[in-house]
């Protein structure tokens, strides 16, 4: 180790000299810079500081538009006049806001909230008092401009939903970013709009764009003198949905008298054509800034219009679940297509009688007839042979009990009970009698309308489970394709061809045979397959006439359908809450009309519209 310390600094001397010169050079440069700023340009900076009137204005990014599958705009932007105040330029902010409120004769201005918002940010940043004022208000404010220093009118884009409540649950809405959201999303400022619900929320990053801004110099009254620098905004991307606006609007109309949900999707790729949840709401109310009482009314409404029943509503699937039990029975060999079971109107098991919906019984039935006529006793016995865990396995394979993964928030998974589940949940063993309820889609079983639509689609297409999606493409503002959404396979049901064939044959006869429970879904020229379901909300000790029952205790009506049977193009799930009638009476007609209208749209003139949908279809199309 050479450690001759004497020589150390000598070899550094030259480098140190250079370092010293470097230090001198850089500090001199800074000195010169200071000379330039403070002596050379001192006067002009001084005048700028004396009336420091440089304002930072945010240029909102134009949010991307949303189109349906045929290019019809579902969500648009239109210019709106917003009343803006810059707190620093007012003499008395509270007074100014009150005056503006008086001129506008508007009741929706919350002075307290605005003052609180103003305190939370720099005084030179504009604050929106009211969005989207009408022309009269514009004129009034212009004429009183001198009394209202600091108040100005800004033109900004306002989100509009031209069809109002149509598809509201899927499209969602936007609103001003909340404080909680500010914490989670960097890059947002107070006053920015953000997607709060539906596609507007879950596709926020694609739709939003990049806000720009400008530094402007204003005079002492806050009037704009010139733009010092400017960063332009970047428009958000446009979305093309798989939704068909016409079918959506038509279905929405059909469901108007009911609470419930309808989902229609393409079995061959999972594209959602229609997603209706009733009652609905008007997203325009949110875009222009929802008033307090409006919000209270919406959120406290007992029918829960903000709830997207298609993905958040979990209902017992009732007899539609027999599709699952039938598939399990055939695959597991619990029955063959020729196995016959006698139904005398009830089944005695463990000291209890489990009723069939048909009091007098169905007589001797095989699987086909049991599905067509929806015989409960047949499925009680099949369920007993299978056991709950086997049924659960097939239910999972067909997509029940797990969220479908649609790109919307708050999707519910439904519930498919197993013996393990029950032990974990209630610390109780599974009772064999409970399996009987599960076999006919009652008991603990819960499913969302979207899951049921996907289930029937999976059966229809031969066992492939696609991820239901509603976005087909994202386009950049210039029109080029940014990303296109490809169908995604979630899994396969792994059912034998013969099983699927057997079930599809039965489902065809549910609609087309004389003894079928779903005859009301029959179309004249195109074969429809389907299954009815009536799920009990209330365990009835003895038969009570439905109209004597309080509405919230009445049965839910289900119908799941696909058509054409041979080469399915559409799968439909209809759910009507507390319908007061069975699936065949209440839900099947809706599925009929939806299918009918769909084929009228796709087959064009060559397709003859059946019965009632005729006039309506022409009106809406």
């Amino acid at each position, binding site marked *: 180790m050479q450690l001759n310390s004497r020589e150390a600094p000598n070899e550094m001397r030259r480098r140190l000299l250079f370092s*010293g010169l470097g*230090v001198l050079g850089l500090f001199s440069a800074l000195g010169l810079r200071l000379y330039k700023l*403070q002596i050379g340009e*001192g006067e002009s900076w001084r005048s*700028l*500081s*004396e009336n420091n009137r*440089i304002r930072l204005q945010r240029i909102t990014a134009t949010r991307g538009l949303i189109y349906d599958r045929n290019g019809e705009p579902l969500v648009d932007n239109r210019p709106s006049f917003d009343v803006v105040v810059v707190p620093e330029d007012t003499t008395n902010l509270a007074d100014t806001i009150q005056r503006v409120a008086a001129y506008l004769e508007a009741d929706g201005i919350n002075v307290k909230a605005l003052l609180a918002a103003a305190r939370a940010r720099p005084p030179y940043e504009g604050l929106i008092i009211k969005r989207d004022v009408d022309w009269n208000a514009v004129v009034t404010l212009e004429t009183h401009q001198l009394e209202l220093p600091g108040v100005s009118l800004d033109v900004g884009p306002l989100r509009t939903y031209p069809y109002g409540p149509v598809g509201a649950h899927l499209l969602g809405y936007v609103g001003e970013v909340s404080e909680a959201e500010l914490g989670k999303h*960097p890059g947002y400022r107070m006053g920015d709009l953000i997607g709060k619900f539906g596609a507007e929320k879950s596709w926020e990053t694609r739709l939003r764009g990049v806000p720009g801004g400008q530094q402007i110099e204003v005079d002492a009254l806050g009037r704009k003198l010139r733009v010092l620098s400017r960063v332009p905004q970047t428009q958000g991307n446009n979305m093309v949905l798989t939704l068909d606006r016409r079918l959506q609007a038509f279905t929405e109309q059909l469901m108007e008298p009911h609470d419930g949900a309808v989902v229609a999707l393409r079995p061959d790729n999972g594209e959602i054509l229609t997603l209706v949840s009733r009652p609905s709401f008007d997203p325009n109310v949110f875009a222009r800034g929802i008033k307090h009482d409006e919000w209270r009314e919406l959120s406290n409404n007992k029918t829960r219009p903000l709830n997207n029943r298609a993905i958040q509503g979990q209902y017992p699937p009732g007899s539609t679940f027999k599709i699952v039990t039938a598939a399990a029975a055939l695959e597991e060999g619990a029955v063959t297509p020729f196995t016959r079971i006698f139904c005398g109107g009830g089944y005695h098991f463990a000291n209890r009688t489990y009723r069939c919906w048909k009091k007098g019984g169905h007589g001797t039935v095989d699987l086909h007839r049991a599905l067509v006529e929806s015989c409960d006793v047949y499925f009680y016995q099949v369920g007993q042979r299978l056991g709950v865990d086997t049924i659960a396995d097939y239910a999972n394979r067909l997509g029940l009990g797990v969220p479908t993964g649609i790109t919307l928030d708050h999707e519910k998974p439904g519930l498919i009970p197993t013996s393990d589940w029950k032990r974990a949940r209630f610390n109780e063993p599974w009772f064999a009698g409970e399996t009987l309820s599960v076999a006919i889609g009652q008991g603990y079983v819960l499913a969302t309308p979207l899951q049921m639509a996907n289930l029937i689609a999976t059966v229809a297409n031969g066992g492939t489970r696609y991820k239901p999606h509603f976005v087909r493409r994202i386009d950049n503002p210039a029109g080029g394709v940014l990303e296109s959404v490809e169908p995604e396979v979630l899994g396969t049901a792994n059912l034998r061809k013969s099983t699927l064939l057997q079930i599809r044959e039965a489902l065809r006869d549910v609609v087309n045979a004389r003894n079928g429970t779903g005859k009301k879904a029959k179309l004249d020229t195109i074969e429809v397959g389907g299954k009815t379901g009536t799920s009990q909300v209330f365990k009835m000790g003895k038969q009570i006439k439905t109209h004597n029952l309080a509405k919230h205790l009445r049965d839910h009506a289900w119908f799941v359908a696909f058509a054409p049977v041979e080469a399915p193009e559409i799968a439909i799930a209809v759910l009507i809450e507390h319908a007061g009638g069975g699936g065949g009476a209440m839900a099947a007609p809706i599925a009929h009309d939806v299918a009918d209208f769909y084929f009228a749209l796709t087959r064009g003139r060559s397709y003859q519209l059946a019965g009632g949908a005729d006039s309506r279809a022409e009106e809406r199309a």
Partner: protein
Amino acid sequence: MRLMVDRRLVYHFDAVLMLLMLSIIAMGTVSVYSASWDPHSARASAFAWRQAMWATFGAVAAIAMVCFDYRKLERWAYLTYAGGLLLLVAVPLVGSVSNGSRRWLDFGPFSVQPSEMMKLALIVVLARYFHRKMRPEGLRLRDLIVPVLFALPPVILILAQPDLGTAGVFCFVVASMVVLAGPSPRTWATLGGVALCLVPALPYLLSHLKPYQLKRIQTFLNPELDPLGAGYHVIQSKIAIGSGGFSGKGFLHGTQNQLKFLPEQHTDFIFSVFSEEWGFIGSIGLIALYLALMLRGLVVVNRAKERFGALLAFGVLANVFWQAVINLGMTTGLLPVVGITLPFFSYGGSSLVTLMAGLGLVINVNMRRFSPERIPNF
């Protein structure tokens, strides 16, 4: 420990260096007072007092750094480095978040910024390394591998906080020490060649990134980066400095500062506050103080007894120098805004204490330049 029994040690204590440092600290504390002054209530918040308290702690730390033979540090180098790194690793695990990045460790009533301590530790390790590697014909390229490996972990950890500015200062300090240690002509040529190749490749690489990717990288490195926000800060800072004019607006009379137009006024933009109130005279005076501190420091390096001391003192000075240049450059609008404070001047406890401790080491090197060599007992 025997405390400075040697009379000669006291005699060689560099009072000039210490007085230069103390004057800068005093001016800084006064500016922090002004920055936290509220004209409405005619009161200042506690920042200035706290800064004075930190300065006292710093003085204790500096004295501690003078009391032992700095050459002992050569033996403690790895330990220091490991300790610093340990603190830095703790930051992402238990550190506290402010302004969107995690830079602090909380210790009861006060919190520390381990990146500041890590800087000193890295300087010590590098000083030790170069001390042994230096050769008359210059450093070979392969001699630079180990320093880079030493610097990499802290730089990566600090980038992840994220604190782009501090990571940059680390790199500048390492580069400065390499330059002092003296790469061979061949190493210079290779490094220059690589740099020359990278410069034209850079725009090519950048142009192949999609705009959103570029943006993502930018926001990763610097989350506060908002073209408009940062631009706004710079223009307000320039207004403050420029409007100070020749003699300034007077103590507590800077309008830019008092009206809260200046962002981060007691930390990153403290110079704007000072410059607005004390004008060109004050600013040039402050820069002259920094210049004097640097040149005096370089004299110490030049006189140091052996290479370890010279490298150690030089590293400490390089840190002060680059921070000062970057901060002054950004407040005057010459450099982009990265969060770097003005050394000895901005408000901030960890930074002030470690900077003062560092200068204590420089004074130590100067004091012991005639002391017999005692360390190497390998």
